[in-house]
């Protein structure tokens, strides 16, 4: 996203330059206006697109709720819906109060944003440098939805066994101490990994910030919490695959806002990201069912939607930087690598990443964030970067380093936060509660009645 911002900055002096070549009087007038009041650069089309994209990304969290909710057992459906809605409410408030300032506020040593924008102090309608053609608060809202869904993704790893209170505390701490700093490193002005004064790692819409970040936290959750009782043999199959397919559809739909919206303008980069996103979802879905078909003799709907989500996750960091063929290769890679992770790696190491948050989002995010260093091309986005096959192997190295930093930080910090929450609140429900299900024991509700 950073690249687009810079590109639009170039346009402003260019426009002023055109005017001044016409007549000195006009030039002077423009100059005096510029000096007296900040030029209002708000573009209506861009603003509409960013607001629309914000609403699309918002829909992804309830979409995720149904995607995950369909995959758990009947007795835990409400706990998943509840957790997803809880991150939406909780992190929205956290974002306004402190999260946005920590992520995008004035830089402190490349590590974090300061607290200058606490409670959105001074963050109003005048555009920011992040998105120079839309009101600053539109950018805040758009980014809010990313901050919301990222801890939501982790739910897939600790599904069916985490205490609700512990979940709330963990999500709040994780957003503040993991999501916000990592977002700053990569997207914030002065962040030490990104393109706005950092090492130059690119992440168009959140391969590292969202998917690796959540995926590594998911792995930490699976390791720290341990397996569900009876895993893997005595765990019933997904209770409602139609819900999962509905959820995946909503995710896909929202992903257009996620990726194409990250252009932060209604421009050709947005269109290119939209195209890359859709193609990647389609190709990875096909890739996954082909593998299912070969290995198990039948293509599965769960495989199709899982593959599509893996492809969408993998193309996220690359969507505004790669051509259609780049997106295809990233999606084929995502389908194969994530399928192997879910099929063999999880079985081999016997961790219970219950709904494959690490296997799909973590692995997909890692692959995509590396792959952008291979297939990125300035032909698609002049403000972006060239990757390995376009003659810039250095970018691949930069991506690898940034991926490693994000992976280590998220995994270690998540483990520490799980440890802390376990000490103060207890992380896991009792064996008895786990057997009865979280819906009844955590929320005193049932998703389905048996009779009437």
């Amino acid at each position: 996203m950073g690249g687009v911002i810079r590109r639009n900055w170039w346009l402003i002096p260019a426009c002023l330059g055109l005017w001044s070549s016409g007549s000195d009087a006009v030039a002077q007038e423009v100059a005096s206006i510029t000096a007296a009041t900040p030029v209002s650069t708000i573009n209506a089309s861009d603003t509409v697109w960013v607001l629309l994209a914000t609403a699309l990304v918002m829909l992804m969290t309830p979409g995720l709720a149904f995607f995950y909710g369909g995959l758990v057992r009947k007795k835990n459906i409400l706990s998943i819906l509840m957790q997803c809605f809880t991150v939406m409410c909780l992190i929205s408030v956290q974002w306004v109060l402190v999260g946005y300032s920590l992520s995008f506020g004035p830089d402190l040593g490349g590590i974090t944003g300061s607290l200058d924008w606490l409670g959105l102090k001074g963050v109003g309608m005048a555009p920011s440098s992040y998105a120079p053609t839309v009101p600053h608060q539109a950018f805040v809202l758009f980014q809010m939805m990313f901050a919301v869904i990222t801890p939501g993704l982790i739910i897939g790893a600790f599904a069916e066994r985490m205490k609700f209170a512990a979940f709330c505390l963990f999500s709040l701490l994780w957003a503040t101490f993991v999501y916000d700093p990592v977002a700053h490193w990569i997207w914030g002005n002065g962040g030490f990994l990104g393109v706005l004064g950092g090492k130059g790692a690119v992440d168009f819409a959140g391969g590292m910030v969202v998917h690796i970040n959540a995926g590594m936290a998911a792995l930490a959750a699976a390791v720290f919490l341990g397996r569900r009782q009876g895993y893997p043999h005595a765990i019933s199959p997904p209770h409602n695959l139609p819900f999962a397919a509905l959820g995946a559809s909503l995710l896909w739909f929202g992903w257009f806002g996620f990726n194409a919206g990250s252009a932060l303008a209604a421009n050709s980069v947005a269109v290119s990201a939209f195209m890359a996103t859709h193609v990647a979802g389609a190709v990875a879905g096909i890739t996954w069912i082909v593998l299912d078909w070969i290995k198990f003799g039948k293509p599965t709907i769960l495989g199709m939607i899982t593959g599509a989500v893996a492809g969408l996750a993998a193309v996220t960091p690359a969507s505004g930087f790669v051509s259609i063929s780049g997106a295809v290769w990233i999606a084929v890679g995502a389908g194969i690598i994530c399928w192997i992770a879910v099929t063999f790696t999880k079985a081999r190491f016997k961790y219970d990443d219950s709904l494959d948050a690490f296997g799909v989002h973590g692995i997909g995010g890692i692959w995509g964030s590396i792959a952008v260093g291979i297939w990125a091309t300035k032909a698609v986005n002049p403000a972006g970067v060239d990757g390995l096959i376009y003659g810039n192997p250095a970018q691949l190295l930069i991506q690898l380093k940034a991926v490693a930093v994000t992976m280590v930080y998220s995994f270690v910090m998540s483990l520490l936060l799980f440890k802390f929450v376990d000490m103060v609140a207890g992380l896991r429900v009792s064996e008895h509660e786990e057997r009865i299900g979280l819906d009844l024991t955590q929320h005193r509700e049932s998703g389905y009645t048996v009779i009437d």
Partner: protein
Amino acid sequence: MKYVIAVIQPDRLDEVLRRLTEKAIHLVTVSNVVGRGRQRGIAEVYRSHKEAGSLLKKVKLEIAVNNAFVKPAVDAIMEGARTGQVGDGKIFVLELPECIRISTGETGDGAIG
């Protein structure tokens, strides 16, 4: 009085009900059940995780009949549910010591039907 329990393939239910009606047998309770028999279940696969020997969906009918209606009931089920394939299901016929109609308090043969 006898109590007839039949476990059949779900897609044969309509045909069985039609034939029961033809033989003037109206009292029937139907439920969705899962189970297994000689055919065993079809192994399901979820994200490459194989579920060994899953149970198959069946429909269970329970019919209380007076002795004269035992054979017609069994015949109706046989005709309606039979495809000749493994998995067609089973019929169990049990003794039924008592039957009471809740609305009127009638008991025995008169309460059935």
